[in-house]
């Protein structure tokens, strides 16, 4: 029974990781084409660090900016999908370990998930 669930969990994790990368790469590509078409002739300057505007610095900011419409926010949304991919993987592992009734690993996974969510949501 245990092996069955472990193998199944591995399958699910594999699908989650692959689809996360595909969805995020497609979104980033779409945003990239949008930038090249609409902002292609603007200067590219990364020599001096200024930090990103507030709209691109948080999950809420990006989500609010995407429909304005905003090419850069669309790329940032794709990158957020990417950051969310391993986090989703951890969340699926949590469900898997819970179904296996493996209390130790439910705790371990909860700790990792809490650290990841703290990093993404808190303002640093």
């Amino acid at each position, binding site marked *: 029974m245990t092996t069955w669930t472990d193998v199944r969990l591995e399958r699910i994790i*594999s699908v989650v990781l692959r689809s996360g990368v595909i969805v995020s790469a497609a979104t980033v590509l779409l945003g990239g084409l949008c*930038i090249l078409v609409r902002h292609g*002739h603007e200067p*590219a300057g990364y*020599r001096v660090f200024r930090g990103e505007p507030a709209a691109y610095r948080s999950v809420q900011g990006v989500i609010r900016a995407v429909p304005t419409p905003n090419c850069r926010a669309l790329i940032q949304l794709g990158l957020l999908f990417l950051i969310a991919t391993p986090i989703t993987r*951890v969340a699926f592992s949590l469900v898997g370990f819970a179904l296996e009734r493996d209390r130790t690993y439910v705790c371990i996974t909860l700790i990792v998930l809490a650290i990841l969510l703290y990093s993404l949501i808190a303002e640093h």
Partner: protein
Amino acid sequence: MSILEFTPLVFVIAALAGFLGALTGLGGGVVVTPALTLLLGVDLRYAIGASLVSVIATSSGAAAAYVREGFSNIRIGMFLEIATTVGAIAGAYLATRVSTSALGVIFGLVLLLAAWQSRLPQPKDAADADPDPLAVRLKLNGSYPTPEGPRHYHVRGVKTGFGLMFGAGAVSGLLGVGSGALKVIAMDQAMHIPFKASTTTSNFMIGVTAAASAGVYLSRGYIDPTLAMPVMLGVLSGSLLGVRMLMVARPRVLRMIFGVVVALMAVQMIFSALTGRL
């Protein structure tokens, strides 16, 4: 330079970095950051932000295959991720506090270490010994498939490995790299996990480790969408191609040449940092 000229240039450099990073096992992130800063004069913080994002993409893509084939040990990965994620957040905080020249010197030194390590032969798996009682309690002992059937292994030195993983996470968060080499050393030397399992489990952990510092980087404005777009797409496509090449042949000569290139980059990085040009 306009965005229309800059983007394809970055894409090509990133694809090359991803390709060579996959072939040598160093990872694309370690190579793309010095390439962007030294060749294109990108500020180190923007380069690190873009590199970190590309690390999540390549490790998740590769891990998808390894996990399905049963090479990665998801329990070892999950348990050690407590240490790597806390380390990653600490490293990312540290990155926002030290100067770019200090960061450049540290990056150069890590790069030198990676170049040195890449020319060493694959370590021999340690003889299987009695497991750590903690490994039994945490169900870390595992197996991976071989042509002769599954090979079982025992895990030792759990506490030491856990401590080393904090360090590996901190380096990852500080420099925006996967620090796969450090993770493999910890699992190989301290925990006596066989090479096949330790490399694939390390890959599995890299995405979660990088995601932990990505939150700090994002909030500090290090992740620039216009730069990260060609870097992420370039490293991802380059490394996919590199992994495919690896299955066809073991490019030993290429590995050696690339080791020298990385060492030169490291020296250049340290020099630029010390003369305040970074």
